[in-house]
C-alpha cells in the first residue's frame, strides 16, 4: 500500500519538491482534515492515557485490596452460571470486527464502489450499537450486583464480602472477607466475629459512586468514569458514522470524487477500538 502515488492538485508546485519545508506545499503530504483528525486523536489519546494512568496510580496504592475483575464480571446472557471474562471478550471481538468492516468501507471508497461503502458502513454501525448495548448490559449487572450482596461496615467504607471459591464461583458458607489492617490482602472472618460486624453494618447490593459490593469504591468510580467516557466515544462514533453514511447514500462523496470523509470517520472509529484494547487489558485482564 505504500506504493500509492501522492496526488498533488497543483502541478506548478512540483518545483518545490526539492525542499518540502520551503512553503507552497504540504510537507507531510496529508490533507488538512486528516492531519487535524490525527492531532485530535493524539489529544484524545492523552486524555485516555491520563485517565488510565490515574487508575493505575490508585490501583498500585491499594494493590492489596483491589478487587479481581474476574470476580466482578462473570455474567453471560441467557446463562445463569458464571463465566469470567467471556462476555467482555465477546465485546472486544465485536469492536475489532467493526473496525475491520470500517476499514473495508474505506477500501471500497478507494475503488469508488458506493454500494460496498454503504454495506460496510451499515455493518460498522450495527457492531457499534451491539457494543454500546453490551456496555449498558454490563453496567446494569454491575449496578445491581449479586442477590447475596455484601456488608458495608460502620466506618462507611470497608466492605465485608462473601467468600467465593475462585474456581467454581460458589459462595463458601458463612465465610466473609475483610481487608487486612497490615496491607496483606484480605482476612477471613466467620461465625460470631462476622455476626458482630454485621450488627452495625449495612447490607448493600451492587456498585454506585458511594459504595461497591465488590470492594473498594474507587474501583467502581474508575470503572464508571473510564468505561463511561469510552462508551460515550463509541456512541458519538456511531452517530458520526451514521451521518457519513447518509452522505454516502446521498452521493455527496461520489460527486466530490473521493471518500476521504469515510477515512476520517474511520480514523475516529479505529481509535475507539484502540482505546478499548487498553481498557480491556487494564480493567478486565490484569
Amino acid at each position, binding site marked *: *500500500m*505504500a506504493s*500509492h502515488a*501522492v496526488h*498533488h492538485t*497543483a502541478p*506548478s*508546485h512540483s518545483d518545490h519538491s526539492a525542499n518540502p519545508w520551503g512553503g507552497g506545499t*504540504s*510537507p*507531510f*503530504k*496529508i*490533507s*488538512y482534515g*486528516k492531519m487535524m483528525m490525527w*492531532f485530535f486523536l*493524539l489529544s484524545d*489519546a492523552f486524555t485516555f492515557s*491520563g485517565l488510565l*494512568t490515574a487508575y*493505575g*496510580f*490508585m490501583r*498500585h*496504592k*491499594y494493590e492489596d*485490596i483491589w478487587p*479481581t475483575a*474476574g470476580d466482578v464480571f462473570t455474567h453471560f446472557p441467557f446463562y445463569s452460571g458464571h463465566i469470567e*471474562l*467471556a462476555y467482555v*471478550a465477546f465485546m472486544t471481538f465485536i469492536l*475489532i*470486527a467493526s*473496525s*475491520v468492516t470500517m476499514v473495508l468501507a*474505506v*477500501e471500497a471508497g*478507494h475503488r*469508488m464502489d458506493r454500494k460496498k461503502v454503504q454495506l460496510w458502513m451499515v455493518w460498522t454501525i450495527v457492531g457499534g450499537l451491539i457494543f454500546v448495548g453490551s456496555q449498558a448490559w454490563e453496567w446494569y449487572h454491575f449496578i445491581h450486583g449479586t442477590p447475596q450482596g455484601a456488608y458495608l461496615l460502620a*466506618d462507611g*467504607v*470497608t466492605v465485608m464480602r462473601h467468600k467465593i471459591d*475462585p474456581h467454581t464461583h460458589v459462595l463458601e458458607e458463612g465465610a466473609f472477607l475483610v*481487608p*487486612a*489492617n497490615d*496491607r496483606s490482602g484480605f482476612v477471613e472472618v466467620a461465625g460470631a466475629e462476622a455476626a458482630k460486624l454485621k450488627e452495625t453494618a449495612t447490607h448493600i447490593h451492587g456498585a454506585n459512586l458511594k459504595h461497591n459490593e465488590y470492594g473498594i*469504591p474507587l474501583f467502581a468510580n474508575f470503572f464508571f468514569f473510564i468505561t463511561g467516557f469510552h462508551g460515550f466515544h463509541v456512541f458519538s462514533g456511531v452517530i458520526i458514522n451514521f451521518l457519513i453514511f447518509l452522505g454516502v447514500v446521498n452521493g455527496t462523496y461520489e460527486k*466530490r470524487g473521493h471518500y476521504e470523509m469515510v477515512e476520517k470517520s474511520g480514523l475516529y472509529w*479505529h481509535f475507539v*477500538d*484502540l482505546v478499548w*484494547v487498553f481498557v*480491556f*487489558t487494564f480493567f*478486565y*485482564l*490484569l
Partner: protein
Amino acid sequence: MDVRDDVYEYSLDNHHGETEGKKIRTLFLKVLAVLSLITIVEVAMGMMWSRDESMRAVLKYSFILMTLVKAGGITWYFMHMGDEKKTFQYVVIVPFFVMIGYLIFIALTEATYLGTIRPSVENYLGF
C-alpha cells in the same frame, strides 16, 4: 467543486483497482485473525492463571506486550499510519510516548510508595 491548488484536498490518491483491492482486503483479514488470536490467548491466560500469585508478573508483562502489539496493528494497518510519511508518523507517535511514558513512570513510582506508607484500610479513601 472548486479545487484549491495551494492545499492538499485529498492527500493520498488511494484510488485503486479491483486486483489491488483484493490484496488489501486479504491483508485486513489477516490482521483481524492475528488480533482475534491474541485476544483469545489473553482471555485463556487470564482464566487459567489470574489467581495464581506466582504467575502474576508473567501475566502482567505478557498482557501489556500483547496489548501493545494489538494497538500497533490497529494503528499501522487499520488507521493506515503505515502509509503516511515518516515525518508525520514521528509527529504523532513521539510526543505520545515521551509524555505518557514519563507520566506512567512517575505515577506508578509514587503510587507504590504511597501504598507502603498508607495508614490503614479504615481511611483508605483519604488520598
